Protein backbone atom coordinates (compact mmCIF):
# COMPACT_ATOMS: atom_id res chain seq x y z
CA UNK A 1 0.00 0.00 0.00
CA UNK A 2 2.90 2.35 0.80
CA UNK A 3 4.12 2.06 -2.77
CA UNK A 4 0.70 3.08 -4.09
CA UNK A 5 0.53 6.03 -1.70
CA UNK A 6 3.97 7.12 -2.86
CA UNK A 7 2.80 6.88 -6.46
CA UNK A 8 -0.32 8.90 -5.67
CA UNK A 9 1.90 11.56 -4.11
CA UNK A 10 3.64 11.96 -7.49
CA UNK A 11 0.45 13.67 -8.59
CA UNK A 12 1.35 16.59 -6.32
CA UNK A 13 3.77 17.75 -8.99
CA UNK A 14 0.90 18.69 -11.26
CA UNK A 15 0.76 22.44 -11.51
CA UNK A 16 -0.98 24.93 -13.72
CA UNK A 17 0.94 26.97 -16.21
CA UNK A 18 2.37 30.01 -14.38
CA UNK A 19 1.44 32.49 -17.10
CA UNK A 20 -2.10 31.11 -17.25
CA UNK A 21 -2.34 31.46 -13.48
CA UNK A 22 -1.31 35.10 -13.65
CA UNK A 23 -3.44 36.05 -16.64
CA UNK A 24 -6.38 34.24 -15.08
CA UNK A 25 -5.99 36.29 -11.93
CA UNK A 26 -6.15 39.53 -13.87
CA UNK A 27 -9.10 38.28 -15.89
CA UNK A 28 -10.93 37.19 -12.76
CA UNK A 29 -10.43 40.49 -10.95
CA UNK A 30 -11.51 42.47 -13.99
CA UNK A 31 -14.62 40.30 -14.36
CA UNK A 32 -15.41 40.92 -10.72
CA UNK A 33 -14.95 44.66 -11.12
CA UNK A 34 -17.28 44.57 -14.11
CA UNK A 35 -19.89 42.55 -12.24
CA UNK A 36 -19.80 44.98 -9.33
CA UNK A 37 -20.84 47.97 -11.45
CA UNK A 38 -24.49 47.00 -12.07
CA UNK A 39 -25.08 47.41 -8.34
CA UNK A 40 -25.40 51.14 -9.05
CA UNK A 41 -28.80 50.37 -10.62
CA UNK A 42 -28.79 52.13 -13.92
CA UNK A 43 -31.67 49.93 -15.04
CA UNK A 44 -34.41 52.54 -14.91
CA UNK A 45 -32.84 54.28 -17.89
CA UNK A 46 -33.12 51.11 -19.89
CA UNK A 47 -36.62 50.35 -18.71
CA UNK A 48 -37.90 53.89 -19.17
CA UNK A 49 -38.61 53.72 -22.92
CA UNK A 50 -40.88 50.77 -22.29
CA UNK A 51 -43.34 53.06 -20.54
CA UNK A 52 -46.18 54.58 -22.38
CA UNK A 53 -45.06 58.21 -22.31
CA UNK A 54 -48.59 59.58 -22.33
CA UNK A 55 -49.11 57.96 -18.90
CA UNK A 56 -46.31 59.99 -17.41
CA UNK A 57 -48.22 63.19 -18.01
CA UNK A 58 -51.37 62.00 -16.25
CA UNK A 59 -52.06 63.85 -12.94
CA UNK A 60 -51.69 60.74 -10.81
CA UNK A 61 -48.30 60.07 -12.32
CA UNK A 62 -47.25 63.68 -12.00
CA UNK A 63 -48.15 63.73 -8.28
CA UNK A 64 -46.46 60.40 -7.63
CA UNK A 65 -43.39 61.59 -9.49
CA UNK A 66 -43.27 64.85 -7.54
CA UNK A 67 -43.60 62.95 -4.25
CA UNK A 68 -40.78 60.62 -5.23
CA UNK A 69 -38.54 63.55 -6.22
CA UNK A 70 -39.37 65.38 -2.98
CA UNK A 71 -38.77 62.36 -0.76
CA UNK A 72 -35.52 61.53 -2.55
CA UNK A 73 -34.29 65.12 -2.28
CA UNK A 74 -35.22 65.35 1.39
CA UNK A 75 -33.56 61.99 1.99
CA UNK A 76 -30.39 63.15 0.26
CA UNK A 77 -30.38 66.44 2.15
CA UNK A 78 -30.96 64.50 5.37
CA UNK A 79 -28.05 62.18 4.64
CA UNK A 80 -25.79 65.12 3.78
CA UNK A 81 -26.74 66.93 6.98
CA UNK A 82 -26.19 63.82 9.02
CA UNK A 83 -22.84 63.34 7.26
CA UNK A 84 -21.78 66.88 8.20
CA UNK A 85 -22.25 66.02 11.86
CA UNK A 86 -20.58 62.63 11.64
CA UNK A 87 -17.31 61.80 13.33
CA UNK A 88 -14.40 59.64 12.16
CA UNK A 89 -15.42 55.99 12.44
CA UNK A 90 -19.09 56.77 11.80
CA UNK A 91 -20.88 55.21 8.87
CA UNK A 92 -21.48 58.55 7.17
CA UNK A 93 -18.03 60.00 7.75
CA UNK A 94 -16.72 58.95 4.31
CA UNK A 95 -19.63 60.94 2.81
CA UNK A 96 -18.41 63.98 4.71
CA UNK A 97 -14.86 63.64 3.40
CA UNK A 98 -16.08 63.06 -0.16
CA UNK A 99 -18.24 66.19 0.08
CA UNK A 100 -15.24 68.17 1.30
CA UNK A 101 -13.05 66.87 -1.51
CA UNK A 102 -15.73 67.68 -4.07
CA UNK A 103 -16.17 71.16 -2.66
CA UNK A 104 -12.41 71.71 -2.78
CA UNK A 105 -12.09 70.36 -6.33
CA UNK A 106 -14.72 72.75 -7.64
CA UNK A 107 -13.17 75.76 -5.94
CA UNK A 108 -10.67 77.39 -8.27
CA UNK A 109 -10.09 80.77 -6.66
CA UNK A 110 -6.93 80.69 -4.50
CA UNK A 111 -8.35 82.75 -1.66
CA UNK A 112 -11.47 80.58 -1.45
CA UNK A 113 -9.34 77.44 -1.53
CA UNK A 114 -7.29 78.71 1.39
CA UNK A 115 -10.46 79.56 3.31
CA UNK A 116 -11.80 76.10 2.59
CA UNK A 117 -8.57 74.51 3.81
CA UNK A 118 -8.80 76.40 7.08
CA UNK A 119 -12.48 75.51 7.37
CA UNK A 120 -11.64 71.83 6.99
CA UNK A 121 -8.82 72.20 9.52
CA UNK A 122 -11.34 73.68 11.96
CA UNK A 123 -13.65 70.75 11.33
CA UNK A 124 -10.83 68.30 12.06
CA UNK A 125 -10.17 70.15 15.31
CA UNK A 126 -13.85 70.05 16.15
CA UNK A 127 -13.93 66.29 15.53
CA UNK A 128 -10.75 65.83 17.53
CA UNK A 129 -12.27 67.71 20.44
CA UNK A 130 -15.35 65.50 20.39
CA UNK A 131 -13.38 62.25 20.07
CA UNK A 132 -10.72 62.90 22.69
CA UNK A 133 -12.87 61.62 25.57
CA UNK A 134 -13.77 58.38 23.85
CA UNK A 135 -11.31 55.64 24.76
CA UNK A 136 -12.60 53.27 22.07
CA UNK A 137 -11.77 55.79 19.38
CA UNK A 138 -8.00 56.00 19.89
CA UNK A 139 -7.29 55.05 16.29
CA UNK A 140 -9.74 57.62 14.94
CA UNK A 141 -8.29 60.31 17.22
CA UNK A 142 -4.86 59.66 15.80
CA UNK A 143 -6.15 59.73 12.23
CA UNK A 144 -7.93 63.01 12.89
CA UNK A 145 -4.78 64.62 14.26
CA UNK A 146 -2.86 63.46 11.21
CA UNK A 147 -5.53 64.85 8.92
CA UNK A 148 -5.36 68.15 10.78
CA UNK A 149 -1.59 68.23 10.24
CA UNK A 150 -2.10 67.57 6.52
CA UNK A 151 -4.65 70.35 6.46
CA UNK A 152 -2.15 72.73 8.05
CA UNK A 153 0.40 71.86 5.36
CA UNK A 154 -2.30 72.49 2.73
CA UNK A 155 -3.08 75.87 4.29
CA UNK A 156 0.60 76.85 4.13
CA UNK A 157 0.84 75.82 0.49
CA UNK A 158 -2.34 77.66 -0.41
CA UNK A 159 -1.12 80.75 1.41
CA UNK A 160 2.23 80.74 -0.37
CA UNK A 161 0.49 80.32 -3.69
CA UNK A 162 -1.94 83.15 -2.93
CA UNK A 163 0.88 85.39 -1.72
CA UNK A 164 2.59 85.24 -5.10
CA UNK A 165 -0.59 86.12 -6.97
CA UNK A 166 -2.22 88.67 -4.69
CA UNK A 167 -0.35 89.78 -1.60
CA UNK A 168 -3.18 91.96 -0.29
CA UNK A 169 -5.76 89.18 -0.57
CA UNK A 170 -3.26 86.84 1.04
CA UNK A 171 -2.91 89.20 4.01
CA UNK A 172 -6.70 89.33 4.41
CA UNK A 173 -6.95 85.56 4.46
CA UNK A 174 -3.96 85.41 6.80
CA UNK A 175 -5.92 87.45 9.35
CA UNK A 176 -8.71 84.91 9.29
CA UNK A 177 -6.21 82.12 9.82
CA UNK A 178 -4.51 84.05 12.58
CA UNK A 179 -7.82 84.22 14.44
CA UNK A 180 -8.12 80.45 14.35
CA UNK A 181 -4.59 79.29 15.14
CA UNK A 182 -4.67 80.06 18.90
CA UNK A 183 -7.85 78.00 19.18
CA UNK A 184 -6.19 75.04 17.50
CA UNK A 185 -3.14 75.42 19.68
CA UNK A 186 -5.21 75.57 22.83
CA UNK A 187 -7.24 72.51 21.87
CA UNK A 188 -4.17 70.47 20.99
CA UNK A 189 -2.26 71.36 24.14
CA UNK A 190 -5.23 70.78 26.42
CA UNK A 191 -6.01 67.45 24.77
CA UNK A 192 -2.87 65.89 26.21
CA UNK A 193 -4.39 66.26 29.68
CA UNK A 194 -7.26 64.03 28.66
CA UNK A 195 -5.21 61.09 27.45
CA UNK A 196 -5.04 59.26 30.78
CA UNK A 197 -7.19 56.37 29.59
CA UNK A 198 -5.00 55.57 26.59
CA UNK A 199 -2.43 52.77 26.86
CA UNK A 200 1.16 54.01 27.33
CA UNK A 201 2.39 52.89 23.88
CA UNK A 202 -0.55 54.43 22.07
CA UNK A 203 -0.26 57.55 24.19
CA UNK A 204 3.33 58.14 23.10
CA UNK A 205 2.46 57.65 19.47
CA UNK A 206 -0.53 59.99 19.74
CA UNK A 207 1.57 62.59 21.52
CA UNK A 208 4.06 62.47 18.68
CA UNK A 209 1.25 63.15 16.26
CA UNK A 210 -0.01 66.02 18.39
CA UNK A 211 3.51 67.47 18.49
CA UNK A 212 3.73 67.15 14.74
CA UNK A 213 0.39 68.97 14.43
CA UNK A 214 1.67 71.73 16.71
CA UNK A 215 4.82 72.01 14.64
CA UNK A 216 2.85 72.49 11.42
CA UNK A 217 0.54 74.89 13.22
CA UNK A 218 3.58 76.91 14.23
CA UNK A 219 4.76 77.04 10.62
CA UNK A 220 1.30 78.20 9.55
CA UNK A 221 1.47 80.95 12.16
CA UNK A 222 4.85 82.04 10.83
CA UNK A 223 3.46 82.25 7.31
CA UNK A 224 0.44 84.29 8.41
CA UNK A 225 2.50 86.57 10.67
CA UNK A 226 4.92 87.23 7.88
CA UNK A 227 2.10 88.10 5.51
CA UNK A 228 0.34 90.38 7.93
CA UNK A 229 3.61 92.02 8.85
CA UNK A 230 4.32 92.71 5.17
CA UNK A 231 0.88 94.07 4.52
CA UNK A 232 0.72 96.44 7.52
CA UNK A 233 3.03 99.23 6.27
CA UNK A 234 1.38 99.25 2.86
CA UNK A 235 -2.21 99.50 3.94
CA UNK A 236 -1.60 101.53 7.03
CA UNK A 237 -4.79 100.08 8.38
CA UNK A 238 -4.05 97.46 10.99
CA UNK A 239 -7.10 95.76 12.49
CA UNK A 240 -7.12 95.20 16.24
CA UNK A 241 -6.78 91.44 16.10
CA UNK A 242 -3.51 91.63 14.16
CA UNK A 243 -1.85 93.10 17.23
CA UNK A 244 -1.69 89.64 18.68
CA UNK A 245 1.94 88.66 18.83
CA UNK A 246 2.87 85.26 17.53
CA UNK A 247 2.95 82.89 20.44
CA UNK A 248 5.61 80.37 20.95
CA UNK A 249 4.27 76.87 20.95
CA UNK A 250 5.41 74.69 23.78
CA UNK A 251 5.03 71.02 23.15
CA UNK A 252 4.52 69.30 26.49
CA UNK A 253 6.60 66.22 27.03
CA UNK A 254 5.11 63.15 28.73
CA UNK A 255 4.69 63.48 32.45
CA UNK A 256 5.14 67.24 32.37
CA UNK A 257 2.37 69.36 33.80
CA UNK A 258 0.64 70.93 30.91
CA UNK A 259 -0.14 74.59 31.26
CA UNK A 260 -1.60 76.25 28.22
CA UNK A 261 0.28 79.32 27.12
CA UNK A 262 -2.68 80.63 25.22
CA UNK A 263 -4.69 81.47 28.28
CA UNK A 264 -6.59 84.19 26.51
CA UNK A 265 -8.25 81.50 24.42
CA UNK A 266 -8.87 79.17 27.32
CA UNK A 267 -12.60 78.92 26.92
CA UNK A 268 -12.68 78.94 23.19
CA UNK A 269 -13.45 75.62 21.52
CA UNK A 270 -13.72 75.17 17.80
CA UNK A 271 -17.31 74.89 16.82
CA UNK A 272 -19.42 75.09 13.75
CA UNK A 273 -20.02 78.76 14.50
CA UNK A 274 -16.33 79.37 14.17
CA UNK A 275 -16.34 77.46 10.94
CA UNK A 276 -18.96 79.84 9.65
CA UNK A 277 -16.84 82.77 10.68
CA UNK A 278 -14.03 81.50 8.56
CA UNK A 279 -16.32 81.21 5.61
Amino acid at each position, binding site marked *: *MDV*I*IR*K*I*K*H*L*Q*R*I*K*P*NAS*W*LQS*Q*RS*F*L*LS*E*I*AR*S*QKPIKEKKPFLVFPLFNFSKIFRPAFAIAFSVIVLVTSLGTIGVMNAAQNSLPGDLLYPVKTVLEKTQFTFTTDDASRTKLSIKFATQRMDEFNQLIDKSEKTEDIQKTVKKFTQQMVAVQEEMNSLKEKNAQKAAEVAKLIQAQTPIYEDTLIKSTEKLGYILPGEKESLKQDINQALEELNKTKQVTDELIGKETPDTNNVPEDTETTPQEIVVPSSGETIESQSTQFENIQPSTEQVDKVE
Partner: protein
Amino acid sequence: MADLETINKEKELLSRTVSGDKEAFGQLYDFYAPRIFRFIRLKVGSQTLAEDLSSESFLRIWEYLQRGEREIEESFQALLYKIARNLIIDYYKRKSSQEILMDDDFKEFLEGQLIIDDTRLNEDTEAVHRALVNIKEEYQDVIIWYYVDELSVPQIAKIMDKSQGAIRVLIHRGLKALKEHLEETE
Protein backbone atom coordinates in the same frame (compact mmCIF):
# COMPACT_ATOMS: atom_id res chain seq x y z
CA MET B 1 -2.89 24.53 3.98
CA ALA B 2 -2.07 24.51 7.64
CA ASP B 3 -0.10 27.76 7.50
CA LEU B 4 -3.13 29.65 6.30
CA GLU B 5 -5.29 28.23 9.02
CA THR B 6 -2.84 28.72 11.86
CA ILE B 7 -2.63 32.44 11.30
CA ASN B 8 -6.36 32.64 10.80
CA LYS B 9 -5.64 34.42 7.58
CA GLU B 10 -8.25 32.57 5.57
CA LYS B 11 -11.06 33.67 7.87
CA GLU B 12 -9.97 37.27 7.62
CA LEU B 13 -9.60 37.10 3.84
CA LEU B 14 -12.98 35.42 3.54
CA SER B 15 -14.70 38.07 5.62
CA ARG B 16 -13.04 40.82 3.55
CA THR B 17 -14.07 39.03 0.36
CA VAL B 18 -17.68 38.81 1.55
CA SER B 19 -17.67 42.57 1.99
CA GLY B 20 -16.50 42.98 -1.61
CA ASP B 21 -12.73 43.33 -1.18
CA LYS B 22 -11.25 42.22 -4.52
CA GLU B 23 -7.67 42.23 -3.24
CA ALA B 24 -8.56 39.77 -0.47
CA PHE B 25 -10.19 37.56 -3.06
CA GLY B 26 -7.03 37.84 -5.16
CA GLN B 27 -4.98 36.53 -2.26
CA LEU B 28 -7.34 33.59 -1.79
CA TYR B 29 -7.01 32.94 -5.52
CA ASP B 30 -3.21 32.93 -5.28
CA PHE B 31 -3.34 30.33 -2.58
CA TYR B 32 -6.08 28.05 -3.90
CA ALA B 33 -5.84 28.35 -7.69
CA PRO B 34 -2.97 25.83 -8.14
CA ARG B 35 -4.75 23.30 -5.88
CA ILE B 36 -8.15 23.67 -7.49
CA PHE B 37 -6.59 23.42 -10.94
CA ARG B 38 -4.80 20.21 -9.94
CA PHE B 39 -7.98 18.73 -8.45
CA ILE B 40 -9.93 19.45 -11.62
CA ARG B 41 -7.08 18.47 -13.94
CA LEU B 42 -6.87 15.04 -12.36
CA LYS B 43 -10.56 14.49 -12.90
CA VAL B 44 -11.17 15.87 -16.38
CA GLY B 45 -9.57 14.90 -19.64
CA SER B 46 -8.23 18.13 -21.00
CA GLN B 47 -5.93 20.89 -19.98
CA THR B 48 -8.14 23.61 -21.48
CA LEU B 49 -11.20 22.25 -19.77
CA ALA B 50 -9.40 22.14 -16.43
CA GLU B 51 -8.40 25.77 -16.87
CA ASP B 52 -11.94 26.78 -17.81
CA LEU B 53 -13.52 24.96 -14.89
CA SER B 54 -10.95 26.36 -12.45
CA SER B 55 -11.74 29.84 -13.62
CA GLU B 56 -15.47 29.18 -13.46
CA SER B 57 -15.11 27.86 -9.89
CA PHE B 58 -13.61 31.15 -8.73
CA LEU B 59 -16.22 33.23 -10.48
CA ARG B 60 -18.99 31.13 -8.96
CA ILE B 61 -17.59 31.38 -5.44
CA TRP B 62 -17.26 35.16 -5.78
CA GLU B 63 -20.90 35.41 -6.88
CA TYR B 64 -21.97 33.13 -4.05
CA LEU B 65 -20.12 35.19 -1.45
CA GLN B 66 -21.53 38.44 -2.78
CA ARG B 67 -25.17 37.35 -2.48
CA GLY B 68 -25.06 38.15 1.20
CA GLU B 69 -28.28 36.26 1.86
CA ARG B 70 -26.90 34.04 4.55
CA GLU B 71 -24.05 33.72 6.92
CA ILE B 72 -21.04 31.93 5.52
CA GLU B 73 -20.45 29.08 7.92
CA GLU B 74 -18.20 27.02 5.72
CA SER B 75 -14.54 27.63 5.03
CA PHE B 76 -13.51 29.11 1.70
CA GLN B 77 -11.68 25.89 0.94
CA ALA B 78 -14.73 23.70 1.52
CA LEU B 79 -16.93 25.99 -0.57
CA LEU B 80 -14.45 26.16 -3.41
CA TYR B 81 -13.97 22.38 -3.62
CA LYS B 82 -17.74 21.86 -3.49
CA ILE B 83 -18.25 24.28 -6.37
CA ALA B 84 -15.46 22.71 -8.41
CA ARG B 85 -16.86 19.25 -7.72
CA ASN B 86 -20.36 20.29 -8.83
CA LEU B 87 -18.98 21.85 -12.00
CA ILE B 88 -17.19 18.61 -12.83
CA ILE B 89 -20.37 16.60 -12.16
CA ASP B 90 -22.31 18.92 -14.47
CA TYR B 91 -19.66 18.46 -17.11
CA TYR B 92 -19.80 14.67 -16.78
CA LYS B 93 -23.58 14.79 -17.17
CA ARG B 94 -23.20 16.53 -20.50
CA LYS B 95 -20.49 14.24 -21.80
CA SER B 96 -20.00 10.48 -21.43
CA SER B 97 -16.94 9.31 -19.51
CA GLN B 98 -15.82 7.42 -22.62
CA GLU B 99 -15.60 10.66 -24.56
CA ILE B 100 -13.68 12.20 -21.69
CA LEU B 101 -11.11 9.42 -21.68
CA MET B 102 -10.72 9.56 -25.44
CA ASP B 103 -9.98 13.27 -25.27
CA ASP B 104 -7.51 12.84 -22.44
CA ASP B 105 -4.29 14.73 -23.03
CA PHE B 106 -2.84 13.92 -19.60
CA LYS B 107 0.19 12.15 -21.06
CA GLU B 108 1.15 15.17 -23.16
CA PHE B 109 0.46 17.40 -20.21
CA LEU B 110 2.82 15.32 -18.03
CA GLU B 111 5.52 15.36 -20.66
CA GLY B 112 5.21 19.08 -20.87
CA GLN B 113 5.66 19.80 -17.22
CA LEU B 114 7.41 16.97 -15.40
CA ILE B 115 11.08 16.02 -15.29
CA ILE B 116 11.74 15.00 -18.87
CA ASP B 117 14.49 12.41 -18.30
CA ASP B 118 12.64 10.61 -15.50
CA THR B 119 10.60 8.27 -17.72
CA ARG B 120 9.81 5.88 -14.90
CA LEU B 121 8.33 8.62 -12.78
CA ASN B 122 6.21 9.85 -15.64
CA GLU B 123 4.96 6.33 -16.34
CA ASP B 124 4.04 5.80 -12.70
CA THR B 125 2.21 9.10 -12.53
CA GLU B 126 0.32 8.37 -15.71
CA ALA B 127 -0.60 4.87 -14.51
CA VAL B 128 -1.92 6.21 -11.20
CA HIS B 129 -3.92 8.84 -13.01
CA ARG B 130 -5.39 6.24 -15.39
CA ALA B 131 -6.39 4.06 -12.45
CA LEU B 132 -7.75 7.05 -10.57
CA VAL B 133 -10.15 8.16 -13.30
CA ASN B 134 -11.52 4.61 -13.43
CA ILE B 135 -12.61 4.33 -9.83
CA LYS B 136 -15.82 5.72 -8.34
CA GLU B 137 -16.22 9.48 -8.27
CA GLU B 138 -16.35 9.61 -4.47
CA TYR B 139 -13.19 7.53 -4.19
CA GLN B 140 -11.37 9.80 -6.63
CA ASP B 141 -12.28 12.85 -4.59
CA VAL B 142 -11.18 11.50 -1.22
CA ILE B 143 -7.95 10.08 -2.64
CA ILE B 144 -7.02 13.40 -4.23
CA TRP B 145 -7.96 15.44 -1.18
CA TYR B 146 -6.33 13.16 1.36
CA TYR B 147 -3.13 12.10 -0.41
CA VAL B 148 -2.53 14.80 -3.03
CA ASP B 149 -3.94 17.95 -1.42
CA GLU B 150 -3.18 16.59 2.06
CA LEU B 151 -6.44 17.75 3.60
CA SER B 152 -7.37 16.32 6.96
CA VAL B 153 -10.29 13.95 7.47
CA PRO B 154 -12.40 16.67 9.19
CA GLN B 155 -11.75 19.02 6.27
CA ILE B 156 -12.85 16.41 3.74
CA ALA B 157 -15.88 15.63 5.90
CA LYS B 158 -16.87 19.29 5.66
CA ILE B 159 -16.55 19.37 1.88
CA MET B 160 -18.54 16.16 1.43
CA ASP B 161 -21.07 16.81 4.22
CA LYS B 162 -20.34 13.40 5.69
CA SER B 163 -19.16 12.13 9.04
CA GLN B 164 -15.45 11.67 9.66
CA GLY B 165 -16.01 7.95 10.04
CA ALA B 166 -17.65 7.77 6.62
CA ILE B 167 -14.69 9.62 5.11
CA ARG B 168 -12.19 7.19 6.65
CA VAL B 169 -14.16 4.30 5.15
CA LEU B 170 -14.21 6.03 1.75
CA ILE B 171 -10.45 6.62 1.82
CA HIS B 172 -9.83 3.00 2.73
CA ARG B 173 -12.13 1.68 0.00
CA GLY B 174 -10.84 4.17 -2.55
CA LEU B 175 -7.26 3.12 -1.96
CA LYS B 176 -8.24 -0.53 -2.30
CA ALA B 177 -10.10 0.15 -5.58
CA LEU B 178 -7.14 2.13 -6.91
CA LYS B 179 -4.76 -0.69 -6.05
CA GLU B 180 -6.92 -3.20 -7.89
CA HIS B 181 -7.02 -1.03 -11.00
CA LEU B 182 -3.27 -0.53 -10.91
CA GLU B 183 -2.66 -4.26 -10.61
CA GLU B 184 -4.99 -4.91 -13.54
CA THR B 185 -3.05 -2.61 -15.81
CA GLU B 186 0.41 -3.82 -14.76
